């Protein structure tokens, strides 16, 4: 079999997905065996130019991690789509917008102001903000346009497969490499490197009948580290999150789930699905008491949509001045 051409790219991500690939250790040898890498900024020195010169469809598989935050992310995502036979949206950012998607609760202007003018460690007496085009005396310099809304990869291009996780679990990366090596890919649009159950289904913490009168923040409770978090009133996104991560937070690290594997199968909007699940465990029928229980949740959108805001139905906070 001829060797595959493989591109791995990061858009608005953090590089954690690239490191997840590196963390397969000797699994890298297998990747080298089946594929030639044509782009992988974290590890190889290929330039954008080389990709632009390729024929359409010249790349066999492209793993894109990171969502679309600026015009460069959009350009590269579209370019790699055109040059690749198969595009995999890898990691929570490409799949759901991820953590950077939380910026959709703010506008472009407030984000730029905070980062370049208001932060205590910033010295910017003239209040200069980045400009897209700058005429230096030697010539023009261009940086990408910063968008108002972060989008997941699939909102910009046609995506063949989704591979969730922040970052994808190492054993799942290895499993996906196996699938690619065997040419055994599922139907288009499938979520690969994950299970078809919810995280709750796979969690080994014993669950009892959930009845919650109070939601606790970590400093408000000494919790039983064997029992289900939700049973104890600690918010855990397990019921609304796809499994397959190996329960690395809930079981292995004694931390409640924050939903990085995205919505459970057949669910579009992870946050409202979790909202439903959480509302069902509230042990009260009295509207006033329900309101007071609900008010104990510190940051509903930032928690329920921790990784999925940019892929939700509303995608961003509505602002009257500028959408």
């Amino acid at each position, binding site marked *: 079999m001829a060797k595959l051409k493989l591109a791995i790219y990061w858009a608005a*991500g*953090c590089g954690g997905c690239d490191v997840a690939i590196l963390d397969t250790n000797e699994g890298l040898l297998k990747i080298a065996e089946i594929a030639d890498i044509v782009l992988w900024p974290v590890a190889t020195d290929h330039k954008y130019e080389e990709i632009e010169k390729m024929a359409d469809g010249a790349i066999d598989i492209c793993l894109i991690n990171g969502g679309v935050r600026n015009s460069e992310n959009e350009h590269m995502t579209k370019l790699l789509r055109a040059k690749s036979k198969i595009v995999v949206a890898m990691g929570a950012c490409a799949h759901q917008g991820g953590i*950077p998607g939380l*910026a959709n609760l703010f506008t472009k202007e407030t984000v730029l102001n905070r980062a370049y003018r208001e932060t205590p460690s910033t010295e910017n007496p003239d209040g200069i903000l980045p400009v897209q085009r700058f005429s230096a005396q030697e010539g023009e310099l261009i940086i990408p346009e910063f968008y108002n809304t972060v989008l997941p990869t699939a909102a910009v291009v046609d995506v063949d497969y989704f591979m969730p996780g922040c970052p994808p679990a190492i054993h799942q990366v290895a499993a996906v490499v196996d699938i690619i090596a065997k040419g055994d890919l599922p139907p288009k649009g499938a979520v690969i490197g994950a299970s078809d159950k919810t995280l709750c289904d796979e969690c080994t913490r014993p669950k009892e009948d959930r009845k919650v009168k109070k939601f606790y923040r970590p400093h408000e409770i000494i919790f039983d580290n064997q029992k289900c978090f939700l049973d104890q009133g600690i918010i855990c996104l397990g019921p609304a999150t796809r499994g397959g991560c190996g329960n690395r937070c809930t079981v292995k690290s004694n931390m409640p789930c924050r939903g990085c594997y995205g919505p459970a199968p057949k669910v579009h909007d992870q946050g409202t699905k979790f909202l439903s699940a959480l509302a069902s465990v509230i042990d009260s029928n009295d509207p006033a008491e329900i309101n007071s229980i609900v008010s104990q949740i510190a940051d509903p959108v*930032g928690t329920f949509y*921790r990784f999925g805001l940019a892929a939700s139905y509303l995608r961003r906070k509505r602002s009257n001045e500028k959408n």
Partner: protein
Amino acid sequence: MKKISIDPITRLEGHGKIEIFLNDAGDVENVYFQVPELRGFEKFCEGRPVEEIPRIVTRVCGV
């Protein structure tokens, strides 16, 4: 004036670009290092509960 672009800078975390301007003698006249990336952690951490911050800012850099 000649321009050499190194785009992207590789084998580090994040997005970077270097533009090198050469004068007529072929010597380097000026170099600009550009970081075309911003995600806005400075802003979107606002409003999140303090105990959640360690699980958010770990995504600043995963390398």
